[in-house]
């Protein structure tokens, strides 16, 4: 997943609608708005009779955070513009277009002691095969 994840992170950082602050773990002192990409290892499986496990299902979550609803929504637009209808390009692999699996409504998050933020969760997937 690491090569595909790098492609996703790079795409989010410099997408077609602008740049984003992107992290692959919860940041300590973030600049707003920002996006966290939570990615799993991907599950490798076989579509061959000989059970050669080379195809990989990739899934990841983006959590988009802003200090206002408008800021969060604008950042979320950049996220969806970057990932929807996009195919990750990874050396040695062929990926499917990214699927937008889930999009939760943006919500106010009061859990921080010193500020109110707004966040939105989206989940994505793609399938990666050897080129």
């Amino acid at each position: 997943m690491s090569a595909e994840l790098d492609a996703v992170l790079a795409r989010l950082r410099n997408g077609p609608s602008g740049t984003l602050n992107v992290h692959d773990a919860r940041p300590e002192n973030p600049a707003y708005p920002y996006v966290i990409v939570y990615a799993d290892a991907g599950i490798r499986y076989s579509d061959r009779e000989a059970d050669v496990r080379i195809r990989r299902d990739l899934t990841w979550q983006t959590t988009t955070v802003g200090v206002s609803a408008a800021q969060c929504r604008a950042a979320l637009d950049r996220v969806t513009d970057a990932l929807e209808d996009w195919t990750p390009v990874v050396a040695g692999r062929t990926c499917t277009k990214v699927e937008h699996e889930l999009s939760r409504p943006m919500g106010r998050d009061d859990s921080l002691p010193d500020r109110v933020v707004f966040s939105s969760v989206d989940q994505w997937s793609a399938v990666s095969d050897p080129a």
Partner: protein
Amino acid sequence: MSDFDLSEVQALSASIAATTGRLASEARSAVAKGALNIKTETRQNISDHPTWKRLAAAVNYDMAGNAAYSTATIGYDDVGQGELAGIAEFGSVKHDPHPALIPALKAEAPRFEKAMGDIASKVMGAL
């Protein structure tokens, strides 16, 4: 005027009607078993952090349907700690996500597909 022997067609019709009833019944059992497996695995997947100690009990499923179809709705009861399930599953600005329900669903999917295939084979074989 010609005479046609339709007895075999009528027998097939009766057989299809009988097996359709069996199919619905067996499919309902498979759906219920799949839902139970997802519920059980979701409960196992939930974080064992003391913060979430009452969340597992909120995972349940409801069955619905009739003679023609069966469905199961699996998720968190919207009571007690179940109201916070969204934070547990998807995280917040303070908490990382800890998916429990979707991984359980994905793990069950191939077993459920096989169970349904076995039922279809069995019922079709009885025709």
